[in-house]
């Protein structure tokens, strides 16, 4: 029943998207229509450019959020270890996290040029979110588990390795989910600004030359890619949680 409803919605949407522009109820120049997307997709693919653009966006996003997560986790560990720095840096981290890093895209473009600036944006976005989420996760470690290992004489390092880090795996997966989405946004906007390749570039370029079929094709591909990434993490989470059965 639910599945029926979902399919109905999709079909209705596709029909509307196809019919309205064709009937000139909506300007076809503005929206394109589904049956135009497939030829566009094929021509992009045949010219060999499609893969190049997809690769540009995806690779940058993946490198961006992975680097952001690794750096962010290391910083969170540093802050956990040296609490003094955490207290000193806290307000700055809050501001950095609250501020939309997207606003820095033009600055990064001027400082780093067209390729590096996109990586920088993806990393910048991921880093601050990761630091905050992971550090909070560390703080939420069960203090009794820490007391337990202390009674065995555990050193600070052992507490980190044996209790805090393994216990934070759910938080890390949560951060991963957030980062994938945000990094992708950053990369697309970065490509708007500066790129000569990538799906963001295609969207911007297509829009500028009023080739909406190009824009819509790219947007559709983008939707598919982001969904695939999200699903990937979803299954990773399920695999990890199934083994550990977190829900106590």
């Amino acid at each position: 029943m639910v599945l029926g409803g979902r399919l109905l919605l999709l079909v209705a949407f596709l029909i509307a998207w196809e019919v309205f522009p064709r009937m000139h109820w909506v300007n076809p120049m503005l929206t394109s229509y589904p049956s135009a997307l497939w030829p566009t997709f094929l021509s992009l693919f045949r010219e060999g450019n499609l893969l190049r653009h997809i690769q540009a966006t995806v690779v940058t996003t993946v490198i961006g959020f992975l680097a952001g997560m690794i750096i962010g986790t290391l910083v969170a560990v540093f802050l956990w270890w040296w609490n003094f720095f955490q207290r000193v840096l806290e307000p700055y981290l809050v501001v950095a996290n609250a501020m939309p890093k997207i606003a820095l895209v033009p600055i990064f473009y001027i400082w780093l040029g067209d390729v590096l600036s996109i990586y920088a944006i993806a990393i910048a976005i991921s880093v601050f979110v990761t630091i905050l989420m992971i550090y909070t996760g560390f703080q939420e470690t069960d203090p009794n588990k820490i007391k337990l290992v202390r009674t065995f004489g555990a050193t600070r390092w052992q507490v980190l390795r044996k209790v805090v880090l393994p216990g934070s795996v759910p938080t890390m997966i949560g951060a991963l989910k957030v980062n994938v989405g945000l990094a992708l946004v950053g990369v697309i906007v970065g490509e708007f600004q500066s790129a000569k390749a990538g799906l963001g570039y295609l969207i911007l370029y297509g829009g500028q030359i009023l080739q909406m079929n190009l824009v819509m094709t790219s947007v559709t591909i983008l939707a598919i890619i982001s969904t695939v990434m999200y699903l990937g993490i979803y299954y990773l989470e399920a695999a990890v949680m199934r083994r550990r059965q977190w829900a106590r």
Partner: protein
Amino acid sequence: MGNEPKVELREVNLRHFTAEGEIEALSRVSLRIACGEFVSIVGQSGCGKSTLLSLIAGILRPTEGEVLIDGRPVQGPSRQVGYMLQQDYLFEWRTILDNVLLGAEIQGLDLKAARRRAEALLERYGLGDFIYGFPHQLSGGMRQRVALARTLCTEPEILLLDEPLSALDFQTRLALADEMAAILRREGKTVILVTHDISEAISMADRVIVLSRRPGRVKAEHAIAYPSGGGRRPTPFETRSAPEFGAYFNHIWGELEVHVRR
């Protein structure tokens, strides 16, 4: 062994500071516990019983006074001491076996030998089938047995038990009390059991120490004996039907001054 007490506290004071001010948890507490003795400390909630255990375990320092093990001052956590907390706090992400090995890992013990000990302990407690399982698959009583195995795997001489049975249901509590007492006595461990349950204290221990309300002071000590059982000491369950049980209970109950605040 000999005359020297295994564990000793001399005029121990413990004060700690909170946002509200200074709280005196323990006041001039002196205790001597002989090697192989099974002692229980009872008192109202908040009287400092758990704090006492933390002092012996070396994770807290006394404000004044001395805490000694084998005549030497306690500097920090020691391999001689095993601490069993109120709940099992098993790590959900480790198998049962790896949970039992946690202490051995941290203390850098020979892991092959520790593994053999861990497997033997788990078998003996009837958990042999769950060695490679995870904590979520076990009931509360089983998990607490795993916690006991974890505590014993590092082969401590002194065992500190912080209300280890209070999180369990009544039947499991009785059954586990018998098991634990048997295991610990057989191994000749020195045991300090902290509990608010007087029956538990009287049934398991050789000596019961009553702590007053905060700030905790040693109010009384009772040697527990069951001569009616003949030469053998009755199991904790059996003591409950012994004639001496009731008298001990009433006496200690009176000392605890359990009453609703006026």
